[in-house]
């Protein structure tokens, strides 16, 4: 058994290979990025439009317009579209968030010539048929009502309106009645404004060859689907002055808790240090919050904190679900952990552990073509470039306990935090 006593040496992994996608442009100006990587004959295509909730005139416009793209176009009914995708073993996903409306295709390379004409038609010539829309609205509304029974959903919604203000597009403001008032013409209006070639960019990832840009040019490069410039909308954040909220959900066995604050964004000099501080607080399995509230007290199955980035705002949030009787104790312990970070320097040992862990994560973030593409978007979507990752790596190697203490004293003050509890 002697051997078991001798720990193998630990090596510090190096910096990962960070790929930059090749920049191309279609004739009509659509920026095309190609991330040529990977060993399997697979390509992922992301068509990204400025078509998120930010550009809505009415609730649900962005998400319903995006979802309706798969329900029928000039040359393919929704059923035919689904049939072709399934027959080719391809996956197509439709997603709308705060700023973007996207269509993503994952397929074996050999099937792309059969799939791109379909994708072209659904993007350029959707029909928005009333009957299909009615079905979709019914299903989405039922899903919405189901989600709204969950304490964590109720909690997150209240948290978002507290942080951003009731009328800001970053607040989750959709109500059941919005499903009754959204109309076909709202979708058509949104589509014609946002799903245009001048609001589009394309990211291709995988084991690609020279045929891919030619195919994309053929299907998406024409000049006949441009639109007007989008209005620049300056939406002001209006954080609430009230800092504590309770959302009542009768019969809930557990309560959901969100504790958080507005925060600087990715381009701020403090941002990377804050990411490291967040990891210590609640960003990995052995974080302070997990060690104290799960592993020492047993109040919860899981607790974590994250720094969230939206294009025009950032925030810090600590999230957990716990038995109703542990709510007060859990909130108290969270604030004690913030206090500890403000008052005591993180030990060299703990910092080293977090540094090593994050270096491993850093390699994972660039492991494989899809991870590379995601990490590219994580800077490109925010108008940054991959120098961000050089800075990240440097900060990770050089940050000190004194730096972290300073950050904690500027960003982890109790009075800046909102507390929302949803439960019985």
């Amino acid at each position, binding site marked *: 058994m002697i051997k078991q006593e001798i720990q193998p040496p630990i090596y510090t992994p190096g910096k990962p290979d960070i790929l930059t996608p090749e920049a191309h442009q279609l004739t009509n100006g659509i920026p095309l990025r190609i991330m040529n990587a990977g060993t399997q004959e697979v390509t992922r295509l992301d068509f990204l439009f400025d078509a998120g909730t930010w550009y809505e005139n009415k609730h649900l416009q962005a998400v319903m317009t995006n979802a309706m793209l798969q329900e029928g176009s000039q040359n393919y009914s929704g059923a035919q579209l689904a049939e072709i995708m399934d027959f080719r073993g391809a996956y197509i996903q439709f997603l709308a968030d705060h700023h973007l409306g996207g269509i993503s295709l994952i397929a074996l390379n050999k099937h792309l010539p059969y799939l791109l004409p379909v994708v072209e038609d659904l993007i350029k010539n959707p029909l928005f048929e009333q009957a299909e829309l009615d079905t979709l609205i019914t299903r989405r509304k039922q899903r919405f009502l*189901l989600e709204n029974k969950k304490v964590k959903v109720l909690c997150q919604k209240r948290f978002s309106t507290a942080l951003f203000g009731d009328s800001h597009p970053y607040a989750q403001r959709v109500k059941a009645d919005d499903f009754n008032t959204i109309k076909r013409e709202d979708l058509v209006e949104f589509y014609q404004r946002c799903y245009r070639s001048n609001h589009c960019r394309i990211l291709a990832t995988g084991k690609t060859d020279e045929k891919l840009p030619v195919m994309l040019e053929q299907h998406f490069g024409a000049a006949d689907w441009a639109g007007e410039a989008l209005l620049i909308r300056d939406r002001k954040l209006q954080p609430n002055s009230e800092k504590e909220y309770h959302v009542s959900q009768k019969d809930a066995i557990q309560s959901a808790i969100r504790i958080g604050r507005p925060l600087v964004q990715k381009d701020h000099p403090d941002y990377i240090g804050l990411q490291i501080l967040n990891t210590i607080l609640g960003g990995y399995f052995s974080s302070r919050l997990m060690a104290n509230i799960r592993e020492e007290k047993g109040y919860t199955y899981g607790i974590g904190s994250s720094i969230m980035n939206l294009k025009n705002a950032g925030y810090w949030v600590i999230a957990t679900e716990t038995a109703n009787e542990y709510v007060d104790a859990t909130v108290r312990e969270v604030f004690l952990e913030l206090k500890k970070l403000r008052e005591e320097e993180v030990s060299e040992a703990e910092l080293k552990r977090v540094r090593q862990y994050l270096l*491993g994560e850093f390699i994972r973030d660039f492991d494989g073509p899809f991870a590379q593409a995601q990490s590219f978007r994580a800077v490109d979507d925010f108008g940054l470039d991959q120098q961000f990752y050089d800075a990240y790596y440097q900060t990770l190697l050089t940050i000190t306990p004194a730096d972290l203490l300073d950050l904690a004293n500027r960003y982890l003050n109790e009075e800046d935090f909102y507390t929302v509890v949803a439960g019985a």
Partner: protein
Amino acid sequence: MVKFYRHQLSNGLQILVYPDYSTPMVALDVCYHVGAKNENPNRTGFAHLFEHLMFGGTKRIPDYDEALQHAGGENNAYTTNDLTNYYLTVPKENLETGFWLEADRMLELDFSEEKLNIQKNVVIEEFKQRNLNQPYGDVWELLRSLAYEVHPYRWQTIGKEISHIADASLDEVKAFFYRYYAPDNAALILSGNVDEDLCVKLAEKWFGSIPNRQVNKAPIPQEPKQTALREMTVERDVPDTALYLAFHMPGRQERGYYVCDLISDVLSNGNSSRMYQRLIKEQKLFVELDAYVSGDHDPGLFIVSGKLAGGVTIDQARKAIWEELRRIQEEPVTAIELEKVKNKLEANVVYSQMNYLHMAQELAGFENIDRAERINEQMLIYRSITSSDLMTRAGQLFRETNCSQLNYMAKQ
């Protein structure tokens, strides 16, 4: 073809190595052949509770996570009815740290009342979070207890009731470890940026001296053939009424399993499938409708589950589903439909090979069934399945006497 290598240590530990040099990472996966089906019916949830205790540290390595994080590693685990699987990933330079950690906790754990009590509490909160505090959270519990009378699949991995977890004693925990956590009841799988020779050498160095524990598992009681329809109705505070039909089907060692899997694909995999197109889109009877196999290793369940559209009765919904189930018994599946589901399987195999960790977990799953080589055999089986196989199997499967029906009514 998934190319991997197999070795066996003299203490019985199976070693599987799957190299994939497109990643700078390695995964190290230890699969123990013990799951909820091996539990005492009065101590359900034990295998899963034990999974939590495996992270409680040993005398030599008091903090498993800390040691792994220093090596840039990440880890997690899961428990199913059939197995308990632990996996970690590290940058390839630190492969040996993974061996050190996993061999150490296979050898011996540092048990204590205090650790046990904390993890019991954590698991009880997990029980509440998953089963009690979610709309439809108790569906699986109800369905399993309806469909099974004898086989331990009648309870879920999280356990039948909270008291089973709360009452577990330290002696039981220790006995469980020495009974099941042994090299002769485990497989070690390495995937990613690994060399076969080095892995075998390291396995010998770290695991080679752990004693064989002569693991001797009690036989699992097999479920007798169902002979009559079973029906259960409950009322809950949920938005939509839901209907569940569960049918007994063959286990993973039988060809029939794969036939059932294709039947479920024809019925409901993807938006072009029969049930989606006819019952959701055309007849608008359901807002959600799925057919799927439970994937259990012993004979498991074929499940059809649907959430009803507003105003639709259970009876209408039931009739519409049975109409589809009859159709697949009476009319041959077209060549195009069959090609479609096979194309999809083929593409999924390529997609899954892009992820070394996923491959390690797949190999672990097949090794637990009986042998990892099945990962390649399954594709041959799928390819050999014909339209008439589907019809014959559907005829055996979709009989009322083989059906358990759960009516999950939304409270008005």
